[in-house]
């Protein structure tokens, strides 16, 4: 029965997979057939937003984060050179723009500085001709603005971020250190053993003394010198009851633990078709999670990146690696890569990433663990209902600046001084996750 229930939505998934394959073909139609800005939401007949104007440093940061950040930083050399004062290394913004759009053309075209870059880094930067001139202009404006800032100030936020992360980690384990408790317990056990030894010694000495004492009555003698009756002790009902009770409890505990552990796959780290390293990409290169997992701030699924996202960089980087060949093969054969799903939430539970990342402003690491240190991704959390519920009980709702919550905050403040948790606004109700 329970299997039935568990598999019910699984079908929908199968359907979805089939549909995905179908859609692959469809997307092709939509592109060469329609090539229209596919009418996304028919109900909303809003006019398209005007294109962002050029030269805006704020807009430039967004463009930079979306397109450049995975290979470049202002102060450090990442995959490509550090960009501090990059604009000063080119005769004009126009030349730089041209280079950003068509690097290989510029390099092969004989530009000495560009050639020098190529000799140093031994690879071409991919063409960025999909960016509009105004967008590149805004990136350059941003680089100029960043370059104007002193080095330390610019580097500070990054460091602060790192520290912030560490502080959070420490915060999670706040209270008494568990190893400290172990030491105390060990010491206590040692003291107890010593006590037993001392008591045994005293008994021996006293028995010896009584044996040598002749002034005892018969009754006292019998009492004092009689050997302890172990048989009657171990055979006593009380002893048997206690032992049976402890045994039953231990078995039950083990049993329950085992049963509760069914389908709890903490630590599940399957081998993937391509040994993608989160440690390298998310850790070392600090690529934003949303760059690859495009749905994580948008929808229910964080989504596994499609091959075209990998190729954004890997059409130029490490192209010789056998693993990259798998990417190129996938494109050639028109066959997507079949990754193994690591986090499997039961189909009966509805979980939406964007609710937690955008509205709840929860860091990915909160549920996914130290993903930036994982060579191979593994399931960090139990993903059980108890785990969800517990977090909903403890987590304070991020209400600042969100007009949706204004009314609730006010109502909550009228009642109590405690912070408003997810539980307080109905976060434990069945239909929030099960429907």
């Amino acid at each position, binding site marked *: 029965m329970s299997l039935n229930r568990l598999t019910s939505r699984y079908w929908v998934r199968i*359907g*979805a997979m089939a549909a995905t394959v*179908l859609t692959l073909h469809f997307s092709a139609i939509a592109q060469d057939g329609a090539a229209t800005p596919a*009418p996304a939401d028919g*109900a909303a007949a809003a006019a398209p937003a005007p294109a962002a104007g050029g030269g805006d440093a704020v807009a430039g940061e967004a463009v930079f984060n979306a397109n450049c950040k995975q290979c470049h930083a202002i102060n450090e050399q990442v995959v490509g050179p550090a960009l501090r004062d990059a604009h000063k290394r080119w005769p004009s913004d126009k030349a730089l723009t041209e280079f950003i759009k068509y690097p290989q053309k510029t390099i092969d075209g004989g530009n000495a500085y560009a050639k020098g870059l190529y000799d140093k880094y031994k690879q071409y930067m991919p063409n960025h001709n999909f960016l509009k001139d105004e967008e590149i202009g805004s990136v350059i404006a941003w680089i100029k603005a960043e370059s104007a800032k002193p080095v330390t100030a610019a580097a500070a936020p990054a460091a602060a971020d790192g520290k912030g992360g560490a502080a959070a980690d420490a915060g999670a384990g706040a209270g008494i250190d568990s190893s400290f408790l172990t030491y105390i317990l060990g010491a206590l056990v040692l003291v107890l053993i010593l006590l037993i030894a001392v008591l045994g010694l005293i008994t021996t000495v006293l028995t010896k003394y009584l044996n040598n004492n002749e002034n005892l009555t018969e009754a006292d003698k019998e009492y004092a010198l009689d050997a302890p009756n172990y048989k009657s002790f171990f055979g006593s009902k009380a002893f048997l009851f206690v032992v049976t009770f402890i045994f039953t409890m231990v078995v039950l505990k083990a049993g329950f633990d085992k049963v509760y552990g069914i389908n709890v796959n903490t630590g599940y780290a399957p081998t993937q078709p391509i040994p993608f390293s989160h440690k390298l990409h998310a850790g070392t290169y600090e690529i934003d999670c949303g760059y690859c997992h495009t749905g994580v701030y948008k*929808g229910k699924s964080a989504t596994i*990146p499609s091959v075209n996202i990998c190729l954004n960089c890997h059409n130029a980087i490490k192209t010789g690696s056998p693993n990259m060949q798998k990417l190129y093969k996938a494109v050639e054969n028109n066959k997507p890569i079949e990754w193994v799903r690591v986090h499997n939430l039961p189909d009966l539970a509805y979980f939406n990433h964007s609710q937690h990342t*955008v509205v709840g402003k929860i860091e990915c690491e909160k549920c996914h663990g130290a993903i930036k240190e994982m060579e191979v991704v593994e399931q960090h959390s139990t993903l059980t209902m108890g785990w969800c519920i517990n977090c909903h009980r403890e987590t304070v709702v991020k209400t600042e600046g969100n007009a949706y919550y204004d009314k609730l905050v006010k109502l909550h403040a009228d009642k109590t001084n405690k912070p408003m948790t997810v539980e307080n606004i*109905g976060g434990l109700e069945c239909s929030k996750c*099960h429907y």
Partner: protein
Amino acid sequence: MSEQNKIYWKGLEELTNEPSFVANAEKEFASVPTAPSASSNTLDGLTGQRRDFLKVMGFGMAAVSLAACETPVKKAIPFLNKPEEYDPSIANYYASSYADGGDYCAVLVKTREGRPIKIEGNKLSSVTQGGTSARVQASILSLYDTERFKAPTVRKKETTWAAFDKEVGEKLAEIAGGNGRIAFVTSSIVSPSFKQALAEWIAKYPSTNVVVYDPVSASGILNANKASFGSAFVPSYYFNKADVIVSFSADFLGTWLSSTEYTKQFAAGRKPTADRPHMNRLYSFEANLSLTGSNADYRAPIKPSAEGVYVAALYNAVASALGRPTVAGGSITAHKDTVAQAAKDLVAAAGKSLVVSGSNDVNVQLLVNGINELLGNYGKTIDINTQLLTRQGQDADLAAFVSQAKSGGVQAVIFNDCNPVFDSALGTELKAALGSVSLKVAIASRPDETTEAVDYVAAAHHYLESWGDAEPRTGYYSLTQPAITKIFDTRQALETVLLWSGNTTDAYKYVSSYWANNVYPRQNSYGSFRDFWNYSLHDGIFEVGAPSLRASTAGAVKDSTGNVVMPEVAGVGPFERASPHTASFSADVNAAANAVDGTYKATSTGTDLVIYESIGLGVGRDANNPWLQEFADPVTRACWDNYITIPQSLAKTWGDFKVNEGDTILANLKVGGTTIKVPVLVQPGQAKDTIGLALGYGREVAGKAAKGVGVNAHKLLTIADGAAKYFVANVTVEKTEEKYRVAHVQTHHTIMGRDIVQGSTLNEWKKNPAAGRHIVEVTTGDKGHVPATSMSLWPGHTRPNHAWGMVVDMSACIGCGACTIACQVENNVPVVGKEEVLNRREMHWIRIDRYYSSSYKEGDSLSMKEEAAENPQVVFQPLMCQHCNNAPCETVCPVAATTHSTEGLNQMAYNRCIGTRYCANNCPYKVRRFNWFSYPQNAENFPLNFPTLSDLGRMVLNPDVTVRARGVMEKCSMCVQRLQEGKLNAKKESRRPIDGEIVTACAAACSAGAIIFGDMNDAESKIAQLMDAESGKRNYQLLSEINTNPSVSYLTKIRNTADKA
């Protein structure tokens, strides 16, 4: 009201208190075996034996523990190259057009992971204005029909397109070369680009004769307008402009012409408010109790063979009142008062009235035109310049084609999107005549009787896979765009026709170039075709002369950042843009009246058979759609069958024959030389000496859901004087002793004798806005009489954030049932099949209870009550989970599987439910549904439940809603998945949800606007304002005496009758 009482009853068995009805009504669940049928007692592989049970249980436990050892490896397969606008788990909506046979609807297609999963109405269209019908809602399932054509076939063998085109092309060329006659038989073509393609075809094959026919034709109207105004057309009707409407057997709310549009228009005049205390008045003259008749303020049951006389009588009454010459005939004996009153009302509302007729007789339609002309309705409620193009077929053309084919005069025939072998009056003759035709081709997506009779089938797309366009009304264009790539090796009809005409353009390019050349020049809002095309595709529609949608966003709903959430669309109704009436009325009304006088008799002795289009199946094109098969007819409340509806008077002559809980008999129906055996239903409101039979059933080649369901009524039709006749006079019905069961749901889930339908008349309501309300008071020791709702056992729940609620306006609800199917699609509600419906186990989350009502005086005998029941009034009451705030179900659940949320929802956690069914037994509204079987995967016992039986069918499931397993209870969740999504969108944009942004599937599907959904805590919301305005007036909660305090409430049914309620 004082000496008159009113009783509401769901069926005759309730009125007469049949013992079996009473026994069943007291139980929530019928005492029927848990095995689905006597012949098969296996349930999911269990044989019901104790030992087997133990074995299976043992195995199950072992399997579970084994399965627990290893988690199955699941794959996550992303795109190779993800399209920019597409994100998994986020729905995309594409505007498109549904055009199936003569039905048209502008729609939005919701797609998830690239598969269409839901149809919504497109509010931008001023033709259908966001309305949908049950058939439009269900059309999405036909896309995933596993029995569709999967490739072109030659003599039933699948082949490749290359081979197919070569073979057909050579034969066509040969026939055309020899100047052989080619017939292109098609349903009405609403696509202008398809019409152009057909012109190319004719250029290539000049010996082609195009035969347009409609299964339910409007030849009568077309020809009457030809005689009246010089050209054959169907005008546009505006029921919203009419204060008085008279319908002669035109079921314009159910099936007539463009019923979705007319529903929208009609319902607009059925919502009296304090600001606008006004309603339209509907008179209906008809034989069957149709949806229109059910909603009529005055209904006169007449024989179809007398219809012409009544039309003439009305003509004369109107003419004499206006001092104009009368015509011959029109002397009636019955319903004189009704005709006189209708005439009086019409004359009083001249220019703001409308007379329509469903008759296919040109002379009757001429008289109807004459009445409208007398009243000056042309140019006001009827627009002859804007013409409805969904019915263009002339029955005479079909008859001519068939006789030509019979005589061997046709060498090739192409059937496009039509099934004349089944759904025309000449089906049998046509099938025989096809033998002499050397090339027989059908362009069809699904197997049917016609494709069975031809040699070549060019497998066509479903509309959700096609590019195309539609012009349902002159100047009102809309586009069809694919929401999924083709599933099978099919090709859309447009491309097939083009290719054989020697044009290799694909459908997309062809349609867009048609628009560039013909539609783009008709506007001046866009400077480039690219913009025009993109925006038209986005909106789905383009209406000539309409103000640009992008310019008219002033009244639109905007979010805090100024983005338009919902564009303003009200107030740009088509009528305001209609050009003035120019053509003059020039028909010879006297000649028509004389002809009518000769054909129709006011009284006659024989029994008339009325053949009508059913609301669910229509003419049977979608018969293989199990959702529609299980959709209970709004009036008879029967499903999975057609049957003859007989009046009580006939049943009496059969020894007081009664239909009880679906138990009925078969009768022999003799029409001319044909005898067919059909089940019988006794139908209150059926005119004396008439019987009714629905079209669309009796499909022989359609698929497993349609096979063997009902009898074919099309073959009883006749074509006389160039028009198909939808009634047959002088038929005989003889009862047989053969027993039969019709699955009708009308008496299931009965709320016995409780006062849940409340209503009044417009005049009473004007005097007292709370007229018809029944306020229950209880006597207390200290406070005296207080309303029952003021006392409660429970502390109640707080709803600090949202308070989701619904108001159902029973005055506006016409009972069409679009909500039922919309809910079924949205919430993965299973199909259970006829057997299980008979066992009272249908699963629909929202049902529309149909109550008959009749007045009686104290002391009336049962037979007098029954007499009153011969022409009862009808009330429709949609009933879904009421989301009680003092919910009886919640308190009895032993495992707390059903609980209350802080947003006013009664939530159901399927995985917690252990199936005690206490909740259903304790629900006073009887809205809970139990999964007796694993309907989704039990192919052996529920073979018709095909959405969930195959991978393809499962693509229709809504991925946000759990598919329920056997043994759990389910019920309306108020589309909690939509609430959650809407709230999340609001949170992400740091704002409160905007009223109208979140709607339930039923409210979105409702053409009549009878279901108003929203947040009752939001003072700006429509629902809060409505409840505020109607509080203590029309607004009431069902069974308020038990103070369940539901979140769903109702508005009283108001009729626009002069006297009785």
